[in-house]
């Protein structure tokens, strides 16, 4: 009944226990409360120190601060002041990405930075596109049902109330969702642009069902968050405050509940007391070349995402964990996943102008589940995207053009429409993060990420590329152009049912360490073909609830209540 009323009232009913939307300033984009933010001393043992102010860390901090915990977040990147720091420009947004060096290897090395790694307060959701789909119930037991991947130690039902809560907080706008566990969204779907309409028409003709959304972009009145202005720069940081990121959705409320965000602080290791086996806090640098500082804390949450979380755990060696924290069974850094993210563009006689409106508009999960007839396990989703000129020029280059040919293609930019896929690539133990010999400016070893595509993955990608080409051809495209690429990151410190095959228990706590948790995308055993942001937040919301009640600290590591 409650759901029904919310569904009818749409955005008129706001989220509970989160005042971020009212705390924001109508006329300034700065994070309110920065100047009056509480400051804790290093020697002051806080209740929780969180490493990383992104989706997982921010939600956890906000929730536990509401429960009365004293929380410090250490963030490697800067404390943004969007009015001055963020720009309506592609190349000028370079500093939003984690551009510190990572070494990439394997047979399919994954470029890092712009489309998978964020840096600074708010994390990579500052520059994510905005798609906020849920995982499907099937994602939580692909091993039992499809014989691939891994089973989660929790189910969709464990996350469902948190999905609903986070969707109200972002808030998510979209049509009623027919796939996975069918559900509604708190805000109505956004208007569809020329590009969205052209692609959607093609999908209908090709027999592919699509829906508008789901995107974490305000469509209506939501406290002091303005309505979207459809300028199309979602991937460059939303200067409007319409697109959701922890910077606007959770950190204002966190600061109002006495959370300290200590920016420009690079954590070097989790400090373990070998006598007790408990972490005493984290050691960090507040400047390059500075002395090490130790922030004491009762609990530690590592929220650095799939590269930096394993890197930090591997760097945190002790007598009890000589190969890195939680790594006595050689599981840390393994099973890192990316999604296949090929994009196909079609050329149309009329002007499309794909730079207008947010890139995420219309999507489909019709191919999400396993269909034996396709010849591979699991599936993919389909989403519209709208590359801006620099990104579009990379597409043209990848199609083999440079010089005069490239300029000729480029000046035709306004005639192209682009659609992409997200393939569920399966977890593999050798797709992993390790420490390289090279060190960063802090003297810490940089991460190395090796990735290789498997046979099922390749079959999935080949099939999905054909589907989006069919959509474009059905839409009336005169020519198509496809680029093969990857997006997103999850895994690397996965949760599971035994320390031999996972890093974390069902409470996202490191096996064998009573007070260190992970709260980010690295905890996921599988990834579905959904964008990970919403699930990272929902997992953090669930973890916070269990930490606040003490259930997460139950020594058995199993699910209790």
């Amino acid at each position, binding site marked *: 009944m409650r759901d029904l009323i919310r569904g009818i009232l749409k955005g008129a009913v706001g989220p509970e226990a989160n005042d971020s939307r009212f705390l924001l300033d109508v006329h300034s984009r700065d994070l309110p409360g920065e100047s009056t933010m509480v400051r804790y001393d290093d020697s002051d043992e806080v209740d929780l120190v969180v490493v990383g102010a992104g989706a997982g860390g921010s939600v956890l901090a906000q929730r536990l601060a509401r429960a009365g915990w004293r929380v410090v977040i250490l963030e490697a990147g800067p404390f943004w002041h969007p*009015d*001055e720091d963020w*720009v*309506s*420009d*592609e*190349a*000028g947004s370079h500093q939003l*990405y*984690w*551009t510190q*060096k990572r*070494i*990439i*290897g394997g047979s399919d*090395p994954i*470029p*890092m*930075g*712009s489309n998978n*790694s964020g840096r600074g307060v708010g994390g990579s959701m500052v520059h994510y596109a905005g798609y906020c789909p849920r995982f499907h119930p099937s994602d939580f037991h692909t091993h039992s049902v499809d014989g691939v991947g891994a089973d989660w130690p929790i189910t969709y039902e464990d996350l469902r109330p948190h999905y609903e809560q986070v969707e109200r907080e972002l808030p998510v706008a979209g049509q009623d969702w027919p796939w996975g566990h069918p559900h509604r969204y708190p805000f109505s779907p956004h208007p569809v*642009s*020329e*590009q*969205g*309409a052209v692609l959607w028409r093609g999908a209908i003709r090709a027999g592919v069902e699509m829906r508008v959304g789901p995107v974490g972009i305000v469509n209506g009145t939501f406290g002091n968050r303005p309505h979207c*202005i*459809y*300028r*199309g*720069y979602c991937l460059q940081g939303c*200067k*409007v405050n319409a697109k959701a990121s922890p910077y606007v959705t959770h950190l204002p409320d966190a600061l109002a509940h006495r959370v300290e965000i200590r920016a420009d602080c690079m954590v070097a290791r989790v400090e373990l007391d070998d006598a007790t086996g408990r972490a005493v806090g984290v050691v960090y640098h507040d400047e390059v070349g500075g002395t090490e500082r130790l922030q004491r804390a009762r609990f530690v949450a590592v929220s650095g995402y799939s590269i930096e979380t394993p890197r930090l755990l591997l760097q945190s060696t002790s007598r009890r964990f000589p190969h890195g924290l939680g790594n006595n069974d050689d599981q840390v850094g393994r099973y890192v996943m990316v999604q296949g993210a090929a994009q196909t563009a079609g050329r149309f*006689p009329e*002007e499309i*102008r794909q*730079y*207008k*409106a947010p890139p995420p508009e219309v999507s489909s999960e019709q191919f999400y589940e396993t269909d034996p007839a396709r010849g591979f396990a699991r599936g993919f989703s389909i989403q519209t995207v709208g590359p801006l*000129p*620099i990104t579009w*020029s*990379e597409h043209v280059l990848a199609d*083999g*053009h*440079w*010089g*005069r*040919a*490239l*300029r*000729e*293609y480029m*000046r*035709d930019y*306004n*005639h192209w429409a682009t659609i992409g896929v997200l393939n569920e690539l399966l977890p593999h133990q050798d797709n992993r993060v390790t420490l390289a010999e090279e060190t960063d400016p802090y003297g810490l070893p940089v991460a190395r990420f*090796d990735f290789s595509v498997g046979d099922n993955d390749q079959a999935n990608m080949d099939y999905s590329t054909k589907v989006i080409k069919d959509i474009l051809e059905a839409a009336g495209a*005169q*020519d198509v152009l496809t680029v093969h690429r990857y997006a997103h990151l999850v895994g690397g410190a996965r949760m599971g049912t035994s320390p031999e095959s996972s890093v974390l228990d069902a409470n996202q706590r490191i096996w064998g360490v009573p007070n260190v948790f992970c709260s980010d995308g690295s905890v996921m055993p599988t990834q579905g073909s959904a964008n990970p942001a919403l699930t990272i937040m929902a997992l953090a919301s669930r973890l916070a609830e269990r930490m606040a009640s003490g259930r997460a600290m139950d020594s058995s590591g199993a699910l209790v209540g």
Partner: protein
Amino acid sequence: MVGRYPDFDVFDAVETWDHATRKVIEDRMALAGRPLRFFTPEEEPTLRAFCDTVMAQDDEPRVPVAEFVDDKLAAGRLDGYQYADMPDDRETWRLVLAGLDEAARDRFGAEGFAAADPTGREEVVDALAAGKLSGGSWERLNVTRAWSVVMHAVLTGFYSHPWAWNEIGFGGPAYPRGFMRLGPVSTLEPFESPGATQEDPVRIVAEGEV
């Protein structure tokens, strides 16, 4: 190259840009003619000839691509990854420029890449794009990846410049203005203008008309 949007200039809307964005773009335009900081005087002619060749810029005024690349590398604004079988991007650039000179010398007996005639330069770049250069500096690189590393920087330099936006009819910065006319029936904002021509580039390139 004939402009497709002769009546369109993103600067017509400059008063609607927010001050932070405007400053970033004006700073970028001011790179033109600035002395290089990362590349040596010996490397500079090869760098400029390469940027001109791959972006088909053969006339003034040029989009300052070479200066953009130099500024990026001098400031250490790298992209966050390095292939395990490749050196640091800064080293990659130096090796690529040396390799281009070597290829021009080997193929045409030219003093360097910049001294080769336009057809010769295009032949060398064609070989680079196809990963078909070897020997000398190229042995220290994965040639296909080197092409993608250098072109990533070149394309970012070129298509981040307002003159390039005018050429392709891109609306440019859009905050706080935004867009009100999204479609879906090809409606344009008052400050946008439709293309004067609409040749299909796929046909033009396939038939060798460029």
